[in-house]
Structure formats: C-alpha cells, structure tokens
C-alpha cells in the first residue's frame, strides 16, 4: 500500500499513531513492511492456505463472534445432502463437469430450496438447466458480488450450529486441515509469526474492537483471485468485522477511478450499477431477463426499475412500454468477451478494429506478445494516450521486429495516435475504493491536439450519428434497423469553451437521473419501472440531488462529524459504510459504546447514528416479513445484508461462484511446488482452454517432469516510482530518473546460487518469453523454507517497455493467459521462471533460447492444462 498507494497510506500511518497494529502480508519486504508492526512473508499464491489457517484458528478455538455469526450470516443454514466437499472428493467439489471445465452448482444449494443464482448465473439454475455452456463461459460472475439468490425465508436453519450439514459445521470441516503446520509447509510462514497474527486478529475483533483487511491486485491476479477475497470475507464475517466502523475489506484499485470504471463499467459483462449484460441465449426479452435477473427479497427485487430507468436515460423518448423500453437495443453476450478473448478474435480475424484508451497492452497486459500479435492482425487501431506508448509503436520498434518475427512492411494495421488530455485539463470525477466520488475541476486547457476522453467519445458519437442520419434515406431497411440504437441515443450534452468540451456535469446529472418533469432524483428508492424516471446508474442516484454536484463538496474534516459525510459523495445514497445495520446487535443496540455507529431509536421509531442507514430507515429490529413479501418488505429487522436475497452475509456461497462455494487452496497455474493440501494441483475450472496458442505455453509444476527447468517462483508488481505500464511515468523525466531501468529483486542466496552480480545483468525465462534486467540483490527478498526445502523467489516490477526515455524489456513477455474463471483476470502474481547471469541474446537468438527452454522442460500445448492436474 505504501508502494502503490502512498497517499492513502497516510491514513494507515495515522491509525498506527493512534495505536493500531499494522500487519503486512507479502512475499517481499516492501515499503509497507518497513512501516508495519509485523511483516509476514508468504510464498506468492498461497494466501488461501494462510487465510484458511486463520479461519481454522478462529473456528477450532471458538473465537468466532457467536451472536453476530448466528444472526447475520448463513452459518445456521442447512445444506442439501447432495453437496460433497473437497474433503470427500480429493480437492474438488461436487458437480464438476471435467469435459466442460465447469461446475454445475445444483448440489451446492440449501436444503429443500431451489436457490436462484446471484445475478448473472441465475439462468443456469433453472430446473430444466437448458442454458448452453456458453452462458457459463461468458463468466458473468462479476455481477455476483452485488446480486443475490432467491432464498425463501423458510430455508431450514439450526440455531445451535451443530447440525452436520449446517454451514458452520461444513466450514469447520473444510478448514480443519489448514493447521499452523500446514500454513508453514504451504506458505513458508514460520509458526511463531503465524501465531502472532492469530492472536492479534482475535484480540482485535469482537464487540469492542474491529479489524480491517486491505488488499490490492496482489489478491485478484490469480486463477483463484475471487476466492482469495472470499476467504477474507469469511474471516471478517466470523469475527464480526463487516458493516462496523474500523472493519470491512478494502480493495485498493490499480488506477485512479478504477472503482468508477466498474460502477459505470468498461467491462463487457456489466451494465451501469452491476446490472448484468443480457445474454443472447437466455435473456431474449425484457420480461425473461427480469424474471431471471431480479430477486424475490432485498433490493435486487427492483432490478426492473434500475434497468428501465437506465434505458430511459440512454434512449429517452424512443424508449416506450410497447418496445420494451428499447431493451432490444442492448448488445447481447454470446460468450466471454474479455480482453483475452478479444485478442484471440483479432488473431482469428473476427475483431478488426480496436480502441486503446489510456492503457498500454503492448507491454502492460499479461502475455504482451499475444496482444501485439493480435494488434498486428487488425485493420485499424486507435491509441489515445499522453505519449507515443509502445501500443502505438510496436509495428516499427517492437520485440517481434527485433527478432524478425514481423516486418513492418507486412503489417496491415492502420494505426491512429490521438493525444489525450490529463485529469488537470478536464472536469470529472474519481471514484475511490470507498465508493466515494470526488470531483476535480479543470485547471488548464489541454495542449495542442490533446483532448479529453469525454470530448473524444462525445464528438466521435456525434459525427457517426450525423453520417448515419444522412445515410438513412438511401439505406436498406436492415441498415436502418441496425442504426436505430445509435440514432435514438440521447446524445445531446451541452459543450463549452474553445474546444467544445462537453459539460462533464451534464453527464453526471444524467447518471444521477431525473423524474418525468426533469427534476433531479435524490435516491434510487424513487426509481420506477414504468418509464417515468431516467437514471444512468442507479447506485449513483443522488450524486446530483437538488441539482447540486454533491461529489464536489469539500467541507473540511474539522468542520463536520468524524464520518465526514459532506466530503464528496459515496454510493449508494452517501452511505459511508455498507451494511451498517450490522454495527448494531439484533435488537438494534450498538454492540458496544466504543463501536457505536447506527442504532434503533425506539421513541422515534427509526434508525439513527453517525451514518445514513444502509437499511430501510423505519424497519424495526423485531420486524418479521409476512408470507409472500417482496423486495425490502421481505427483509427481516435483523437482515443487515440487504443486497443478499436472504439478508445474510454468506460464509458459504450456495450459488453464483463458478469455482466453488468455499475458498480452497490450489497452487497457481505454474508453481515450483506440489499442492500439499490436496491431490488436486490447480483450480480445476481455471479459465485456460480458449487461449491455446504457441505463444502462450505453460510450464510444468511441482513434481511434474521438466518443472526443474523453471525452478524459481516469479512475482510481478509495481513500485512507488512508476505507474502501471509506464505511459504516465516513464516519459516523465522526474519519475523516470527515480527508477530508470527494469530490474529484478533477488535474495543473496539466489544470487550466489545462480552467480548473479549485484548491479549487473540477468536473463529471466519462462515458458513464454525471455527478458533481461538489471539485478538488485537484497535481503528484502527472503527465500521460503517449507517442509525442509527452500523456494527462491524472483521479483519483477513490470513498468518498463521498449519505448520512451527509460526503456527496458516488458515483464509481460513472461506472463500467461490463465485466468480466474469468475473475473477473467490473469494470474501475474505467481509464476515460475529460471534466472541466469548476463544479458539475453539479441535477434532471432532470443527465440532460440526460448525454444531451448521449452524443449528442455518438455512443454507441449497440453502442459499444465489438465483439469485434474
């Protein structure tokens, strides 16, 4: 966090100054470790084993916050008899379809209930289960986080938590093997350090105290990334650390406003506000879509109001009841369309044009070579960035030109480079990890031809619409139909200034939404499914309440309460802590005075406290829902998790995750060791099969033959000096000079073992590529001692590329395209490699060295792709 989020780290330092203990869990000793109370070095890719060990410690010793767990989680819920755990099936769950590489999660459900999957995977749970495999492959799992399952209120429960099939007991059994000894053997964490963490965590949780977890992409970039965060969620629910001040799980994002770009997504499988993108096979009409995507209980019951208001915001007057509010204008998924499938489509020739806005895939995306090969097969490519980044120049100076694999004159891609404006040159908002929007005002006009992304998008749309409108008269009926969605868009933002910059606040006002009379809405509770309201993103509704830009509020901390509700605006409804009903006990009293946050005022019959209630404001703690109640009325007075269809926090996920209801330790796609916990080596449903390509081979792992060719653990990461793929930092002289060259970090032991010279050069190879780096030998990269053997790690910051004033090889020549099946995120945090002293070969000899490695390791198209391996 100190490395990549130094500004946010000031609050950690402030907490530390007030007595908070800071524990840093990381394979490397980083700037964060330097300021922590305890650094826990763990082998990359073993976090579930570590977190599972903590869960086991809590459960085995009765340290759970029993009152919280019983009332607010699904611990008491009883599972179906058909469910079989990893304990019974040698490391996999029941329902595995090895041929399709998917789980059928029918057997994971609650007893006697037909559980509806969370948003996105719901159609898979229909009784006939007729949905084709393509629906699963489209992996619409990213919607699950905010979706909920249709769980009837009479799901059988055992309030004593002793029933062998209740979630609590299942959890206990599942994690029983995650002992401190196992944590040491798998993670390399010494038992005394682990015991210290256990004790601190337990002592700092309960009625009087709370603990928070913070993670970054170090957790998400794994083939089991979602399950990492799930494991933390289980731990936090068991300890009562969700919905309470000082608790929670905070995701630090990779860029400014990446939170914003998932809320109002740049993702293929979501519409604004985590509404799932319709699927071609299963969401044909609006009614069918709403039947499968909304829930009986909780706030997803109003998915119709959210979606129809969105359609009204986009298509205005053209969206009418008799045309299903233009639902048919929405695109349909036909499978997964992540950045990696897009590359495969480019190679197949079905994707022929590509916009690259503010990213640098030629060096910044996992397996950068695949990205360049894809871009070389396009008709046109548009790159918008501050500088002539590698994604705009690979055709003339990329690694394939050097090796002779490509010749510039053979590349047909027409490349357009358009300079982009910086955030200081435009108005707009950032949404941070706390879901808080903060407005920034333009300071200067952009230089030269540089324009904002808003300018580019708006004026591009405007010109396309002009062209299409002019062509309407002569167009065929099919073309006219095809163009209707574009022509009917409400594309009428006012512009200002010499550059005709669209008014960013007008966009914000549309996102906020308005009623039939054009008055700004103030809450998503006002949204209607009858077309009378328009709202561009239901969770952002209220950000422009009363016609005021609430995100631009900057009342100083000293002039308001400690929750600071008048600094910026947080979705939803300016609530600063989600699920904050859980900060009070089932009767509505604070768990302790020290941690009082929200409580029931019996006299006034409403919830009150320091924050805006994330709960129906007048629903009494003792309320029970009548039979057949729907939406918020179906939530009981002690159901704090209002987006979950049973109102409970899920220790166990009966449906919605593609790779299991409980986090389970699997080794990464490539690992120097064999899985010590199960005979199942890797996540059986990791996403790999779509990407079979000679440039994306995998190394053997553990005891597999040839694994010793790549004997070392490799991790990639960022350092404070640079930003992601370097587009914003390597061309800035003040930043470039701080870290002018690509380097690797290795321990003195590994340096001695391989004869690496401190400050000299090393060549690093994986199954996919060979790069050269400078060498930094440091004790900060300690080896791991596990079960009598030592594992060495090689660390690589990935900021460099072949272009710019501070060039270096791209680390992503080494990384692969094995993905988490839920989120389609690649595993770049844990791989295997070899390292040798000296610079890499030049030209075609670079490829010869790679082929030599692949031959020695016996790598084929099948290596590492087994389901059961």
């Amino acid at each position: 966090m100190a490395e990549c989020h130094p500004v946010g780290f000031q609050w950690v330092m402030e907490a530390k100054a007030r007595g908070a203990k800071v524990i840093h869990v990381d394979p490397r000793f980083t700037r964060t470790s330097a300021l922590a109370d305890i650094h826990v070095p763990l082998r990359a890719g073993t976090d579930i084993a570590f977190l599972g060990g903590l869960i086991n410690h809590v459960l085995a010793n009765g340290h759970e916050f029993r009152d919280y767990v019983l009332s607010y989680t699904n611990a008491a819920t009883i599972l179906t008899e058909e469910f079989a755990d990893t304990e019974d099936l040698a490391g996999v769950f029941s329902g595995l379809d090895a041929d399709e590489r998917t789980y059928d999660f029918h057997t994971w459900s609650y007893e006697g209930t037909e559980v509806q999957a969370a948003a996105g995977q719901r159609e898979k749970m229909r009784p006939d289960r007729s949905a084709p495999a393509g629906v699963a492959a489209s992996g619409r799992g990213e919607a699950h986080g905010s979706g909920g399952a249709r769980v009837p209120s009479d799901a059988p429960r055992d309030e004593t938590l002793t029933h062998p099939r209740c979630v609590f007991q299942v959890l206990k059994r599942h994690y029983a093997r995650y002992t401190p000894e196992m944590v040491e053997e798998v993670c390399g964490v010494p038992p005394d350090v682990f015991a210290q963490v256990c004790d601190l965590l337990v002592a700092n949780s309960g009625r009087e105290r709370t603990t928070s977890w913070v993670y970054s992409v170090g957790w998400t970039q794994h083939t089991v990334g979602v399950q990492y965060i799930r494991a933390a969620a289980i731990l936090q629910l068991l300890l009562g650390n969700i919905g309470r001040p000082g608790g929670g799980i905070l995701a630090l994002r990779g860029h400014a406003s990446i939170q914003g770009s998932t809320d109002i997504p740049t993702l293929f499988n979501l519409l604004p506000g985590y509404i799932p993108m319709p699927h071609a096979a299963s969401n044909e009409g609006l009614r069918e879509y709403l039947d499968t995507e909304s829930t009986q209980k909780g706030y997803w019951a109003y998915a119709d109001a959210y979606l129809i208001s969105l359609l009204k915001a986009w298509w205005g007057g053209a969206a009418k009841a008799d045309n299903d509010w233009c639902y048919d204008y929405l695109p349909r998924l036909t499978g997964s369309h992540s950045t990696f499938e897009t590359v495969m489509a480019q190679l197949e020739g079905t994707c022929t044009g590509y916009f690259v806005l503010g990213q640098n895939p030629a060096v910044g995306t996992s397996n950068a070579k695949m990205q360049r090969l894809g871009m070389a097969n396009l008709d046109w490519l548009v790159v918008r960035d501050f500088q002539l980044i590698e994604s705009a120049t690979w055709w003339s100076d990329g690694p394939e030109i050097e090796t002779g694999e490509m010749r510039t004159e053979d590349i047909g891609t027409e490349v357009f480079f358009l300079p982009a404006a910086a955030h200081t040159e435009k108005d707009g908002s950032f949404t941070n990890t706390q879901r808080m929007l903060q407005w920034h005002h333009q300071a200067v006009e952009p230089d030269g031809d540089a324009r904002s992304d808003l300018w580019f998008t708006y004026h591009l749309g405007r010109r396309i619409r002009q062209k299409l409108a002019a062509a309407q008269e002569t167009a065929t009926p099919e073309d006219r139909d095809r163009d209707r969605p574009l022509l009917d868009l409400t594309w009428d933002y006012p512009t200002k200034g010499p550059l005709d910059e669209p008014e960013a606040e007008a966009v914000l006002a549309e996102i906020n939404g308005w009623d039939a009379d054009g008055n700004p809405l103030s809450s998503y509770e006002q949204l209607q499914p009858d077309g009378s309201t328009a709202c561009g993103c239901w969770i952002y509704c209220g950000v422009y309440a009363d016609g005021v830009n609430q995100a631009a509020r900057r009342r100083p901390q000293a002039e308001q309460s400690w929750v600071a509700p008048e600094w910026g605006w947080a979705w939803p409804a300016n609530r600063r802590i989600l699920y904050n009903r859980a900060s009070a006990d089932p009767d509505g009293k604070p768990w302790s005075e020290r941690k009082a946050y929200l409580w029931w005022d019996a006299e006034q019959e409403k919830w009150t406290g320091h924050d805006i209630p994330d709960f129906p404001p007048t629903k009494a703690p003792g309320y029970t829902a009548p039979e057949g109640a729907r939406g918020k009325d179906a939530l009981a007075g002690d159901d704090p998790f209002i987006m979950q269809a049973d109102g409970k926090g899920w220790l166990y996920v009966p449906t919605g995750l593609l790779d299991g209801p409980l986090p389970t330790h699997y080794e990464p796609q490539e690992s120097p060791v064999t899985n010590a916990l199960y005979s199942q080596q890797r996540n059986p449903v990791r996403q790999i099969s779509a990407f079979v390509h000679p440039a994306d081979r995998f190394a053997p792992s553990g005891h597999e033959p040839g694994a010793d060719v790549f004997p070392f653990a490799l991790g990639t990461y960022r350092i404070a000096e640079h930003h992601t793929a370097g587009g914003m930092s390597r061309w800035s002289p003040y930043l470039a000079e701080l870290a002018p060259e690509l380097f690797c970090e290795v321990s003195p032991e590994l340096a001695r073992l391989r004869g690496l010279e401190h400050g000299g050069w090393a060549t690093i190879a994986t199954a996919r590529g060979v790069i050269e780096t400078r060498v930094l030998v440091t004790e900060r990269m300690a080896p791991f001692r596990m079960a009598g053997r030592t594992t060495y790690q090689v660390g690589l910051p990935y900021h460099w590329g072949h272009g710019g004033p501070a060039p270096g090889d791209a680390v992503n020549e080494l990384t692969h395209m094995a993905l988490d099946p839920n989120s389609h995120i690649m595993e770049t945090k844990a791989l295997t490699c070899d390292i040798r002293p000296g610079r890499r070969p030049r030209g075609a000899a670079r490829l010869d060295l790679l082929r030599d490695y692949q031959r020695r390791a016996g790598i084929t198209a099948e290596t590492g792709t087994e389901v059961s391996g």
Partner: protein
Amino acid sequence: MTIHPLPDPVVASGWTDAPPRMGFFTDTSVCIGCKACEVACKEWNAIPARGTEGSSDLAQDFTAMSMDNSMGLGADTWRHVAFIEQRKPLGIQEPGQFHGDDPSGSDVLALAAQGSGTPPSEAGMTPTTPGPAGEFRWLMASDVCKHCTHAACLDVCPTGSLFRTEFGTVVVQEDICNGCGYCVPACPYGVIDQRPEDGRAWKCTLCYDRISVGAEPACAKACPTDSIQFGPLDELRARADARLASMHENGVTDARLYGRDPDDGVGGDGAFFLLLDEPEVYGLPPDPVDTTRDLASMWRHAATAAVTVLAGIAVTFAGGSGRRSRR
C-alpha cells in the same frame, strides 16, 4: 561547543521585524520512501531531471543501491530520500525473514560488505547493516539542506549571492552567483553543489517563493505521511522533543534528534531530523562544524605567520645582501 555568540541569525543579518525563523522537521520514522518530496521539489523549482538538458548529471543509471537512484543531494537534487537496509528490529516488528542455514552456503553479510558506506560497484548486494539473521528493517529518510544557524556557505560567498532570508533560511540568488564555487567545500554537510555548464551553485531555498506568500514548501506539501513538517523552528523543536519522548517511552531507544541542538557545531539546523540510528548510517556527518568557525583565529594565525615570514625574509635579505656583499 558554542561558537560566536550569534543567537538569532536573522537579527544578525540585519533584518528587523522579521517573522519567526522557519524550518523543517523531518521525522524519518514515518517516512515511507515514496519520493514525492523529490519530485515535488523538482517540479516546483524547475530543476532539470538527470539525463535531461541542463542537468549536472547526464547519466541516468540504475544504481543498485536499494531503491535509491538519486544517490544524494546535489545541484539537481534538493531533497533526497535515502534507503538503508539493516538487520535490526524496528519497534516490535518481527519480520521473520528467512536467511541463513541455506544450502547455497552464501555468506550474506560478507556479500553485503561493510554497510551502507560501500560503493555499489564493490558491493555483492544491497549494502546491509550487519545483525542477527531474521531481523530486518528498512530505513528511509528524506535529506535536505540544513539551513544552518551558522552557515559557512553564506560566510564564504564573495558576491553576496548567498544570503540569510527574513525566515532565517539560507538562499542562493541565481542571478548573482558567479560560479566561484567557494561555498561547495565550505558546507559541512556536502549539500550545496554546482552545475557544470556555468558553475553556478544550487540548493534548497526552503521554497522562499512559496513561504513568502504563506504557502508550505513543495516537499512538505507533497509528503503524504507528514514525515516532512514545516513551521516556526521553535514550534518544530517542541514537537520533535515530544515525539522523541514518546518514542523512547515506547521502547524505540535508538531514536534521536539530529541538528536540533542550538549548541552543536553549526549552532543548530533550521532543517533538523528524527533519526532511528547513528547519523553516519544515513550518510550524515556525526559532528558537523561550521567550516568558518575558526576563520577569525585562522586569520590571526595567518597574520602572525605572515609577519613571521616577512620578518624572516627581511632577515634573509639583510643577511643575503651581507653575504653577497662579502662576495
């Protein structure tokens, strides 16, 4: 070690009705090494980056000195963050780093050679202060011009380019400096430095332009953890004393203030530090002395010597002429 009685350098420099003396307190115990101070300083003061036109250092190299590629204060680096790797526990930190009983048989400490003073080219690894295996800490500290109470650079400056501001800070005026370079060896900390193109001297101005209009210096403004604190020196000293007392109370007995003492060899620094180890560990002189402190007596000695020499010469001439005359 009090030297000439000069309690208030501002008054001594002829200022009347001056504001309080302003300075920096750099608390290195909360520095996270983000280098925002280095960058903010260069941005605000338009200092050329290394490897760019006008820079004193055209090379822009990877140094292999932990995370430090700036390597010290100079004409183009007015804030510098040092990174020191040590086998020492920090507070209650028990990092559990595994080093030792290793099949590779590497002698980590032999590789590390002799601590942070080893030139990178000769080190087998990032220089690491020796200590028991398993202990590890990483010190970070942002260094800057000390703005001495008795500033030798200012004393030796023949053009008056270096002057004492009303805030008690020491500033070079770039339009007056003639590039003579006398100030460079005069600085007891090795801070002030010349750019090669015309020899003019450059260093931290404590953002004279910013503080003149009531703004905070750029580095302090950018520092996310308030490791760099700016304010009236009296207040900073009181704050630092309290911080030190609290650290000692919490068992961080190695913590110490550096440059805070008005009785030290430079009369105390306008920019002082809280360190977690000996000053030498950070590349700071343990006992800096105003290099012009003995100037008066030196001149007296020189004058005596000169008189003696002249007398000797006179005698020689007298004698010589006598001898010659004898010839």
